[in-house]
């Protein structure tokens, strides 16, 4: 079984978000970059499948050299091999095209992406890969069981869970639930040492055109100060919500 896990390199979830150069670039100053959490749930599941399904796990990122520590961490967690497609990512679409182009030759049975990245929140890469390669696509996955060439997948829908069955190859959008937060693998010293020996290959990008361009970013307006109501005056809160905020 041949698994590809697509990794996005994102600011840690606790990062303060700021922009520089007139609101056109994310301020990386003092920000730690991590594996996109949704991708990490998928990666953990893939690493489990090394034992249960004799899987070979490749991780892949489209990005410049600065993403390599994140790929090394994926190797330390248990991926067998890392690939970096060398270009700065322009938009979700061109990233997905690069991944599709690479995957076409590799015959992956399973391509795992996160449901969305926590920086751009595009939520498109998996779908675009599946659309281009004409593979099955299931996102918001919270459970996966593969038997032979058949996958049984649960995905979160509005207000419930849906269970689907399909043949491989399959593109999967991972999220929390596919594995639990407590299942995430913290690399140990042996894993870190072994990761240094594992291949991290750089391949040339095809430089597909972007279909969208971010012109600029801005942050929400500063919040007004909270209006406090005394604990023994909940009537007042109801009144404010009804007559001032007009939300109940």
């Amino acid at each position, binding site marked *: 079984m041949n698994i590809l896990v697509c990794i996005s390199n994102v600011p840690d979830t606790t990062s303060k978000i700021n922009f520089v150069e007139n609101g056109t670039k994310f301020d990386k100053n003092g920000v730690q970059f991590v594996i996109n959490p949704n991708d990490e749930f998928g990666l953990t599941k893939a690493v489990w499948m090394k034992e249960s399904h004799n899987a070979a796990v490749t991780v892949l990122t489209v990005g410049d050299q600065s993403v390599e520590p994140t790929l090394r961490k994926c190797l330390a967690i248990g991926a067998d091999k890392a690939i970096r497609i060398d270009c700065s990512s322009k938009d979700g679409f061109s990233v997905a095209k690069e991944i599709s182009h690479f995957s076409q030759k590799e015959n992956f049975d399973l391509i795992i992406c996160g449901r969305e990245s926590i920086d751009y929140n595009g939520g498109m890469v998996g779908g675009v890969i599946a659309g*281009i390669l004409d593979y099955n696509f299931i996102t918001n996955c919270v459970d996966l069981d593969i038997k032979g060439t058949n996958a049984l997948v649960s995905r979160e829908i509005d207000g419930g869970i849906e269970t689907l069955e399909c043949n491989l190859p399959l593109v999967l959008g991972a999220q929390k639930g596919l594995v639990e937060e407590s299942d995430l693998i913290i690399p140990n010293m042996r894993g870190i040492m072994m990761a240094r020996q594992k291949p991290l290959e750089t391949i040339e990008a095809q430089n597909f055109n972007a279909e969208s361009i971010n012109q600029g970013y801005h942050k929400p307006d500063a919040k007004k100060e909270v209006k406090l109501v005394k604990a023994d005056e909940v009537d007042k809160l109801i009144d404010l919500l009804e007559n001032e905020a007009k939300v109940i």
Partner: protein
Amino acid sequence: MSILIYTESENNEFKKSALEALSYGKALGEKMGENVTCLSINSNNFNSLKQHGADRIIDIQNQSLEKFIVKNYAEVIHQIVISESIKTIILSSSANSKYLGAYLSGKLESAYMSNVIELPSEINPFLVKRTCYTNKAFSTTEIKSEIKIISVSSNSFGIIENVTDPDIKKIDVEIKSSDLKIKKIDKQTGAVTIADADIVVSGGRGLKGPENWHLIEKLANLLGAATACSKPVSDLGWRPHSEHVGQTGKPVASNLYIAIGISGAIQHLAGINSSKVKVVINNDPEAPFFKAADYGIVGDAFEVVPELIQKLEARNNNN
């Protein structure tokens, strides 16, 4: 040329989010000088579309579209895009519509923009405003592809009444059989979902244990609200993952978000940033949530919430 709105329905009723997508599409149509075509699948009551600006309705009745299989739905839209020379596709932000948007993007080789919160500020170039960094920021993004696929963020544009008398066109579509099958759908019936809710009542570790969740449920019930929770609560297994709100959970864009016993970690606050009015009830005045909230009560949830329930019950009885 026409703007295509995929108006999602369930049990023969168009979803609230679909009517918001239609309202957005109609306003966009006015800006671009185009009419709007609603795509209706296996529905036969078009009243709500007629009340929210539909100029045309494409009515598809097809057994193989009974369940939402993304490939089949994308195939239908693909066929319509070609036959009707569609250049703009508007979707809602329901789970299925976002799923469809991503797949369509690859199939049509066109840009897909999720989380769009406003009409484009300009049409040429086509500039949309969307949320990113999990609601911690906005981006202005130019869509360059000829065909544009847009998901309208829930509760961002609103539903606008606009009575029309649309043409209804029945279309037959050919669907190839797919190896992907939906085996089972487990859905709570009757409960308001976080995605559809105007009001969300959310509980944190301050509630001390799952046995106290009746307080959250009762308050939610009185307000017609959905229930949600913080990450630690879902990690501890007190509540299902599907209720977890935040960066790795669900985003909430309700009109009112009431947080009870939630301190307000940055990841949680990011997830609820798009909610319009935020209320916090917490016994710790230093809880970061007070900096993000519009209204707050510093107090013990076990005293404040029952009191709130009682007053709301009295209010409901008087109305």
